[in-house]
């Protein structure tokens, strides 16, 4: 029913789509796959009227669609969750959910109906959120859930989901997919963009693969492919799996970073952790477990009320990131790249070089040449897709933005690196490259604290895994890289904690 033929879209210096085709049938879940920068989000935006195509046409049930703006797509019954969060911070959860069809009577807002409608959508996803909470106070993941609820609030014939689960954990993703299946069964068409191939294979029926803005597989049944074949299609050649660097962590080496009984103003209680040079400590937990906030507390962005932080055995009182970087050589790659990681309106060069200007400068002046050379090194190393290093960071595809946000800290040359959800929204190949890179860094002797909600990732990379739940570390495991067993243990830890906690407060 919804058909996009030969879509072309050009941005200054980039041809994002170059004859992409997508055919959607009702009652199917259609996977839209491709590497970072392949043009998936651009395609989604063309189908929802955010951009206008430079060529090609879109038809719905045989009639041509001219989408002048998001409103037209909405009227045509196309709902969407975009890759980037687009919520109004000062508005409540409820209002955000129903923003595109604010219920009113003679121009007056009907708050009761608004709340009820929002409640209904949240309930679909089994999300326990007060509809009156301002979204400014939600975590990234909660925001994503609200965004999904918003897309569900209209009964759309077509639903486009652009990496809806990027920052969700398994549980929430499962709930989302239950809803998706239900929608499919009632005759809706759902497009799913995701880099989590396991999920894709679990829910999708058909697949379109984009490479360099062109469709290389069109609406084929997914059952006919293996994961490896899909990856090869995306990449355009056989994808060799990557060997992680061998490393040995000296058992006796003193910890590079050690938290001892740390409590914070936010409510972390008695957190103790230690990472040795050359070691990767995975920090796993469900959404809202307080891992990101813990990292920020270490960097002095949240107040520590008790306990000590030691860097290389010396007690450290870090007040801000600058101090962490310069005095202690600690870097922090944030999970919230849009607000905290990137300067969207600045060129990629500056985004990468910002942490090292001090080093690049000659007599206080930074030569463009050196800055550019540095940026180019990392663009190449991480395979960042840019039309030129002077492109604005905000114009990159989501995955490439993530790479820029990481590149900045690689450039900074730290001893201790805290990476928070580093591979959110990153394609399979790049993710593998990332893993290789991170393992390589550890092999060079960096101490790495890997905060991730991606369980396979944690199991692949980490030497030890600490599990956090509800602002506390509830257990620590040595990793033997055996995924089934490790994941079981970890999940058990997360749930056991909830259980124990329940008993404690009941007593």
């Amino acid at each position, binding site marked *: 029913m919804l058909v996009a033929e030969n879509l072309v879209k050009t941005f200054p210096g980039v041809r994002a789509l170059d004859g992409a085709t997508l055919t959607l049938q009702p009652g199917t879940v259609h996977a839209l796959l491709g590497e970072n920068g392949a043009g998936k989000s651009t395609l989604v935006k063309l189908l929802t009227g*955010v951009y206008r195509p430079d060529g090609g046409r879109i038809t719905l049930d045989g009639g041509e669609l001219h989408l002048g*703006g998001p409103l037209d797509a909405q009227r045509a019954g196309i709902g969407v969750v975009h890759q980037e969060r*687009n919520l109004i911070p000062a*508005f409540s959860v409820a209002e955000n959910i129903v923003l595109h069809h604010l219920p009113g009577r003679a121009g007056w*807002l009907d708050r009761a109906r608004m709340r009820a409608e929002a409640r209904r959508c949240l309930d679909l996803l089994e999300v326990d959120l007060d509809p009156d*909470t301002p979204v400014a106070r939600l975590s990234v993941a909660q925001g994503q859930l609200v965004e999904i609820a918003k897309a569900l609030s209209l009964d759309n014939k077509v639903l486009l989901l652009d990496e809806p689960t990027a920052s969700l954990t398994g549980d929430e993703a499962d709930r989302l997919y239950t809803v998706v299946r239900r929608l499919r069964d009632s005759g809706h068409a759902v497009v799913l963009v995701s880099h989590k191939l396991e999920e894709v294979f679990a829910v999708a029926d058909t697949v379109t693969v984009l490479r360099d803005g062109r469709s290389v597989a069109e609406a084929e049944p997914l059952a006919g492919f293996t994961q490896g074949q899909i990856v090869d299609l995306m990449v355009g050649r056989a994808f060799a799996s990557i060997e992680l660097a061998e490393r040995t962590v000296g058992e006796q080496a003193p910890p590079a970073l050690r938290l001892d009984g740390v409590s914070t*103003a936010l*409510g972390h209680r008695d957190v103790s952790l230690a990472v040795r040079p050359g070691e990767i400590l995975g920090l796993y937990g469900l959404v*809202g477990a307080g891992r990101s906030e813990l990292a920020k507390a270490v960097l002095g962005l949240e107040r520590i009320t008790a306990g000590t932080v030691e860097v290389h055995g010396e007690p450290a009182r870090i007040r801000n990131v600058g101090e962490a970087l310069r005095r202690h050589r600690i870097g922090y790659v944030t999970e919230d790249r849009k607000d905290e990681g990137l300067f969207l309106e600045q060129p990629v060069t500056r985004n990468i070089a910002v942490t090292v200007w001090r080093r690049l400068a000659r007599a206080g002046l930074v030569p463009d040449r050196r800055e550019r050379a540095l940026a180019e090194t990392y663009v190449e190393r991480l395979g960042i897709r840019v039309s030129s290093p002077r492109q604005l960071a905000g114009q990159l595809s989501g995955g490439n933005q993530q790479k820029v946000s990481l590149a900045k800290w690689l450039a900074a040359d730290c001893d201790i690196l805290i990476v928070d959800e580093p591979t959110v929204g990153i394609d399979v190949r790049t993710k593998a490259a990332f893993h290789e890179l991170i393992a390589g860094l550890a092999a060079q002797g960096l101490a790495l604290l890997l905060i991730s909600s991606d369980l396979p990732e944690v199991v692949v990379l980490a030497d030890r895994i600490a599990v956090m739940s509800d602002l506390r570390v509830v257990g620590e495991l040595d990793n033997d890289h055996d995924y089934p067993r490790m994941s079981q243990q970890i999940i058990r830890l997360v749930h056991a904690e909830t259980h124990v*906690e329940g008993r404690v407060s009941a007593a």
Partner: protein
Amino acid sequence: MTLSATDRVTRRGRHLWRTPEFTLGVIVATGFLALAFATGGNLLSAGTLEAFFRFLAVPIVIGLSQMVVLAVGQMNLSVGALTGFCAMAAAWLMIEAGFPAPVAVPAALLLGLVAGLINGALVVLTRINGFIVTLATMTIIQGLRYGVNGPDTYQGYSEGLRAFGRASILGLPAVFLVAIAVAVAVALFFSRTVTGRQLLASGGSPFAARLSGISNDRSVIIAHGLSGLLAGVAAVITVSASGSVNATIGDDLLLPSFAAPIIGGVALTGGMVSVAGTVLAAFLVRLVDVMQAQFGINPRWVDLIIGAVVLGAVLLGTIRQRVRERST
């Protein structure tokens, strides 16, 4: 029971007494009482209160006029000039063209509305920053304002309108009650109407608003139109309350128009409004005016004091916050 993420979120929530409006309210009340006390009650005498509230009407309305555009992340530098122009136009209609007040008043309001809509349309069509567009239109409107009657003063128009300007109901000037009614209407508009919410959405995050099918262009035009209309209301209040108008009317309104909403807690970046804050801030500024008259203070000292007090309050607020953080 475990502390769910939701619980934590609400625990962080603001309580009434932590809102800026509340703080401002306390400052205003304290200031008012202190002044009443210091003047030996003179402030509370009917005449003084009358004067106090009568000249509070325009600052409130003009502050709201600015607030409306701030809500969508715009600014309107032409509010003052526009108020003067509408006032002069109304007086011209009554004196030179011989129309009665019931014609002149709606005409002035309409003029404000149209000028505001033109501002908005220019911003949308040219995609130029509203600050600059209204700076240009301010100059144009100043020219028009002067063109009505040169530097001379209009006086002696409609007795009925003047009577309304002088009237008071239950000891409060009618014009002040008009201003309060306008404030309530504006507050309802932003909190209770679909259009009002859409305006705030456009201001808070234009891109997100666009993705939700809201036209930001429409929001900008509506906000400017409303701002112009409120400038028209301020003009009508001026004409009726003051009895004489000339081309200088509105010259002193630009800074107060910004000061009221901003002291009242409205962000320049858009997406939020605070009607109560704006009204209270206008009240605060008026309090200082009166203090000056009561004690015969050199206005320059007053400026110095206002500046120092605001800076001091700002510093104190931070210190207080620090202390509170420590104690939790």
